[in-house]
């Protein structure tokens, strides 16, 4: 499964991408160490995911709290 690229975010600077080395270091820090041959493809995929998710930076979320434990009938 892969993501379809979205149009660039208006008003937001382009995000700095991962290098294979920075992807390896970040994954290591997250407790998911990568094998060396995985660094480039994981870097590219992570950049793609972040490009999609970072669209949320457009939103003014004010003091809205997160919904970590979710219930459909309660705020």
């Amino acid at each position, binding site marked *: 499964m892969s993501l379809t690229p979205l149009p660039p975010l208006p008003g937001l600077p382009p995000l700095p991408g991962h290098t294979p080395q920075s992807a390896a270091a970040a994954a290591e820090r*997250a407790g998911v160490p990568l*094998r060396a041959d995985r660094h480039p493809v994981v870097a590219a995929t992570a950049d793609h*995911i972040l490009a999609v*998710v970072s*669209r949320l930076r457009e*939103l003014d979320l004010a003091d809205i709290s997160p919904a970590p*434990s*979710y219930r459909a009938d309660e705020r």
Partner: protein
Amino acid sequence: MTVVQPYELSLAEAADAIGDGHLSPVELTESVLARIEATEPLVNAYAAVTADSAREQAAAAEREIAAGRRRGPLHGIPMALKDLIDTAGVVTASGSAVRAGRIPDRDAAVTARLKRAGAVLLGKAHTHEFAYGLTTPQTRNPWAPDRVPGGSSGGSAAAVAAGSATFALGTDTGGSIRVPAALTGAVGLKPTYGLVPRDGVAALSWSLDHVGPITRTVRDAGLVLEAIADRGADSLPGSEYGHGHGGGGHGHGGDGRGPGYGIPRGGGLDGVRVGVPSDYFFDRVDPQVEAAVRTALDRMADLGARLVDVKIPLHRYVQAVQWGLMVPEATAYHAEQLGHAPELYGDDVRVLLEAGALLPAVDHIRAQRARTLMRREWEGLLGQVDLIAAPTVPATAAQAGQEAFGWPDGTTETVADAYVRLCAPANITGLPALSLPVGFDLQGLPIGMQLIGRPYGEAALLGAAGAYEQEFGPAPRAAVDTCLVAKK
């Protein structure tokens, strides 16, 4: 005159026949097992078939019923469970080499509930690996074997459509019940988040995962939900329409008494306000899909529904929220295994799990906050209308191996992204959503319409869908027999 075989019966029809003494659980189970043998070479819906155990369960059901101890409408009815759902003593591998040969000690909560209701387990239905995908490549669509059944509950939907299970359970994180239901001409219900327990079901994303039924009819979906839900929707907000009026169906124990998800008979859709989105849900949708859904909407209006134009709130952020929640949750679930034997995962799943480790926590929290906002906006929307009606997916079943759809505006979209796009809002908001068949495209592939309701409004949703189905009938059984003949 064509004789109807037991495997062709809907759950409700089979339950009525068993209740009347015209059909035994053993006859029904043998018929469905024979159907499995006939269709599996083409469809491959099952990861494992437990024929001997099914025969024993059916014989036990027959004895109990003969002794006057019928438990309800599911007693003696053969069904399939998605391979993500634990079954004590039966291999449950989540479609992955990571869990090959894994045999759980305990049943999932839903498995235990179906057993208590007397249902007969036929086997485990294929899933896209760990439910992290929308195609279920192991399985073929019973309507066209060169096409995917959708996913991730592709085996469950294909079995129901092919007649090789009378009903099935699936799971839904971004459409994984509704997508395969739509692509195979079945009914798929994603209940309100939390209504059906997920204990003993492998997680993809805890905050988005749901368990629910895939069936041949709307009425059947209500019968299964009754057996697996934590509590009756009738006592909860959002259930004020369409529940139980007329006392038809098998609301409670097959006798039409008491609370439940029985479908009202002959009530039509008088006064029901159906929200028809003027944006998002009809953007980048195959014209044949759009035409079939709009025809179905006209039919709902003919049945008394009032169609109301609505705008979908915050739709620009649906994909961002879905991925901001699902991607890191999935990686967290698999983190330990990824460190041990990552090569056991399929390529498509492995790269997403690995890349999920790189999403900053602040973006995950931002997705959770946006989710709060989205839920509030949808709550307001469902104050204006009783339910939302839209296509389930923007296209019919893709070819096996197809990677993308092209849209008239010149854009392309991956098959997975397209199939998730219209389903994800109900996962993010936790709202109940149901897909029902409303027609076919020119290639004879099924088209699904999605109805989205209020929290715990399953009875209302089933009532509206049931009213449509009673008027226009369920989808015919898949044309797999023609394919089987052609193959010989």
